[in-house]
């Protein structure tokens, strides 16, 4: 099997302050729900850059900004999913 592709979750100071601790388990669950966990691996990253717009996720070259524990589910299904499906 091919190595999984990384989905980077920023864990820098700013993003941490904005709830990464709570985003992480949610995100893991969402990946499972959509059976993406077979092809995508969630990885921790140091500061991804746009700190002011935390929390930040990165898949391939695309950044997803302003993610919060509250809006994660919506943002994931409406926006991120189509990018992530490219890994399938």
């Amino acid at each position, binding site marked *: 099997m091919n190595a999984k592709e990384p989905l980077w979750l920023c*864990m820098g*100071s700013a993003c*941490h302050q904005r709830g990464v601790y709570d985003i992480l388990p949610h995100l893991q669950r969402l990946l499972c729900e959509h059976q993406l966990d077979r092809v995508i691996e969630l990885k921790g*990253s*140091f500061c991804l850059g746009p700190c002011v717009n935390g929390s930040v996720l990165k898949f391939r070259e695309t950044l997803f900004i302003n993610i919060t524990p509250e809006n994660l589910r919506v943002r994931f299904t409406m926006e991120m999913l189509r990018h992530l499906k490219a890994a399938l």
Partner: protein
Amino acid sequence: MHDFLDIHDSSLFRHGEELCGDQVRLVQAGDRTIAILSDGLGSGVKACILATLTSQIIATMLGAEAPLDEVLSTVIGTLPMCKVREIAYATFTVVEVNQVTLEVRVINFDNPPILYLKAGHPAKLQHRVEKILDRDVIISEGRLERGDFLAALSDGVLHAGLGGAMNFGWGRDNVLKFTEQTMLHNPGSARAIVTRVLNEVNRLYHDEPGDDATIMGVYVRARKSLMVFTGPPLKEEDDRGACDKLFAFAGRRVVCGGTTTNIVGNYLGMTIEADISTMRRNLPPVGYVKDVDLLTEGILTMARTLEIMREVKGDITRLPEDRNGAVLLATELLEADYIEFLVGQSISEYYQNPLLPRNISIRVSLVKEVVEFLREVRKEVVVDYI
């Protein structure tokens, strides 16, 4: 070169007492390090005051390079004698080491003989007896080498177990044997040796010491060095140089800060991953990369590190067990004898956000506080701003 004079002292208080009748003072006078252990007669307040007075007089006078006989006659002349027991009210041991040449002089006035081990085995220093104001003072001299351990003891150490676990107390031979065994296990620091021996003393006393017991240990070992690179340099073109410096450093290496970590990642041409399992609700995770011993987030981690180090008063053995960024950083800092900080002064845009609490807004002042604390716990610290 790069031998380190590791000095640590620790005391058990006589059961039920709130003050210790044994007192230790350390003075640094030029190249000379002077460590004094004084044991006041009896225990409690009176003993404590006598021992404090004695060690302070010696520290002040020897620190000011007063000649030995003058120091001793001042102390012996000042100390009252106990009329009943015909002994002085406070006894003392002075260990004076030249940090450069490692020449050592030990002055012992009525304390138990010092322990001295060379390469882990009992050894002896040349000694002579001098009469000062009609009192015997034993003076030992020699030169220490890497691996030597020398310790001054108060008599409470030798009396451990008296009448209880052992009829006549632990005694000097047993203390020496126990220390020898301790050294077999590569203890790594004066603190480790002193703590193990003193724990045994406490055990023999069944946790209720019948006398104050103190060990002041001097251990010559290789100096442990650490470099901490934190914060992006003011000018981007200095990034490379800072990394060159970090990787050329002979010792352990820590990178502290997200942007700083990215600078190091770029330099190495790799993405540095954070170890998710080390993330805590109040602390971002750490990362690892070849040739760097630890990478952490910056401000939050460093602030918590400072808190933790203060909570445990710089005692590495009391750090919390949790494997998080702050504990790991505190471990690196407290393990080192010599620490070089490479502090980049560029402030990330994010921290200029006026909505942020001020305490996470200024790296430089945080580093200053950390440095101050480390110096208080006798670390040699050098700070380089870039």
